C-alpha cells in the first residue's frame, strides 16, 4: 500500500488536483484508512496509465472516462475469454475440435 503523498512524489508529472479529480470520478479507487488514502500496486499502475493517457497522449479530461471504460471492458472481456478458453481446454479433444469448428463459419473467410 502506498500513501497518496508518496504516489505523487514518485509519479512523474502527476498533478495533485488531477489525481483528486480522477478519484472523485472513480477512475481509480484507492482505499481510505484512518484518514489516509492508500493505493495498492494495481491502483498505482492504473494511475500511471491515466497519466500516460492524459499527459502523453493528451486525451481530454472529458474523454478520459470513455477511454478508461473501454480499456476496462477490454480487460474484462479478455478475462471472460480466458475462462472460456480454459473451459474448452479441459474438454476432450473431440469436443474441442467441434467447438472450434463451430466458431470457424463465424470468422471472416480466410
Amino acid at each position, binding site marked *: 500500500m502506498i500513501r497518496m503523498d508518496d504516489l505523487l512524489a514518485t509519479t*512523474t508529472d502527476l498533478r495533485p488536483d488531477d489525481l483528486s479529480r480522477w478519484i472523485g470520478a472513480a477512475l481509480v479507487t484507492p482505499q481510505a484508512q484512518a484518514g489516509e488514502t492508500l493505493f495498492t500496486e494495481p491502483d498505482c499502475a492504473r494511475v500511471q496509465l491515466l497519466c500516460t493517457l492524459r499527459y*502523453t497522449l493528451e486525451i481530454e479530461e472529458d474523454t478520459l472516462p470513455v477511454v478508461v471504460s473501454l480499456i476496462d471492458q477490454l480487460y474484462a472481456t479478455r478475462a471472460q475469454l*480466458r*475462462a*472460456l*478458453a*480454459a473451459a474448452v481446454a479441459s474438454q476432450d479433444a473431440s469436443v474441442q475440435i467441434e467447438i*472450434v469448428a463451430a*466458431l470457424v463459419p463465424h470468422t471472416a473467410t480466410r
Partner: protein
Amino acid sequence: MKDPYETLGLQKTATDAQIKAAFKKLARKYHPDLRPDDKTAVARFKEISAANDLLKDPDTRRRFDAGEIDASGAEQRPERPQQPFYRDFADGPGHAAQDGFADAATMEEFLARAFGGQRGSARDGMRARGQDVSYALPVAFLDAATGAARTITLQDGKTLQVTIPEGAEDRQMLRLKGQGMPGYGGGPPGDAYVELHIEPHAFFQRKDDNIHVDIPVTLREAVLGARIDVPTVSGTVAMTIPKGSNTGTVLRLRDRGLRNRKTALRGHQFITLRVVLPAADEPALAAFLEGWTPKHPDTPRKEMLT
C-alpha cells in the same frame, strides 16, 4: 542502445514540438496497456520513453549531441523508475491463475485455432484434422437400383460429386474423403459422409438383391396364357404367362434383380400375378358362365368353413 533520434524517427535538427509529437504518436501505438496481446510492446515502449526522456530535456539533449553522454546514459538516470504497467495486473498470468484459469498460452492457442492466424502462427500442437460432416441424400428407387451420379450443393455453395453405386441400399453411407471441413493449423480436411435415403417405388419392392412386383393380368391371359411386357428395374422385358396361371402365381425373371455389391451377381425379379376381371360389363362372359358347368367343381373356402 539505439540512437534516440532514430528511435523516435527524427532528424538531429528536430524541434521540441516535433519530439513531443513523435513521442505521442509512438506512445499511442506501443503503449502496452493498449496492446495487451503484443509481447514486444513493453520493450518498444521502454525504448521510446527512454529516447523521449533524453531528448525532451534540453540539457541532456545538448550533452548527448555533444557526445558527453551516450544513449544508454539516459536510461541510467533515476528520473523514471520502472513501474509495472496496468495490464500486468488486469491481464497478467497471476490474475488468471488466481481465478483458476489456464495460463495465457491456453487462451492464445484457443484463439489461434478459433479465429485463424491473426494471433500468432499455428504451432505443431494445434494441427488438427477438420471436422467430418454428414448429409442425407434422398435417392430415387431406380437411381439406387442402376447406379447414378449426382451433384449435391451444400449450404455454403460448395458442391459435392456423389456416385451412387449400382444396387445401393437404403441408409448406406458413402464416404467422400477430404470433403469435410478444412483442417486447422495445416491439418488435413475432414471427410464428408453421405447417407442414402432410398425412396419407395410405386410398384417395385426390394428384398435383398431381388425385386418383387405384382403384375395384373386379364382373365384371358391367365386362362389361356400370353406373352406380355413387364417392367423391370432395367427396362421393359417380354415374358410368357403360362396357360392356367392364377392370382398368387409367382414367376421368376432370372438375373433381372439388383447387382450384389460383393459378389457382382444379379438377383432376380419375382412377379406375383394378380388376375383382374374385366372392368366393364361383359354380357357374353356372363352368359357363358351362366351355362358353364365346371368339369372339376372348386370348393375354395372348404378349409375356412368347418
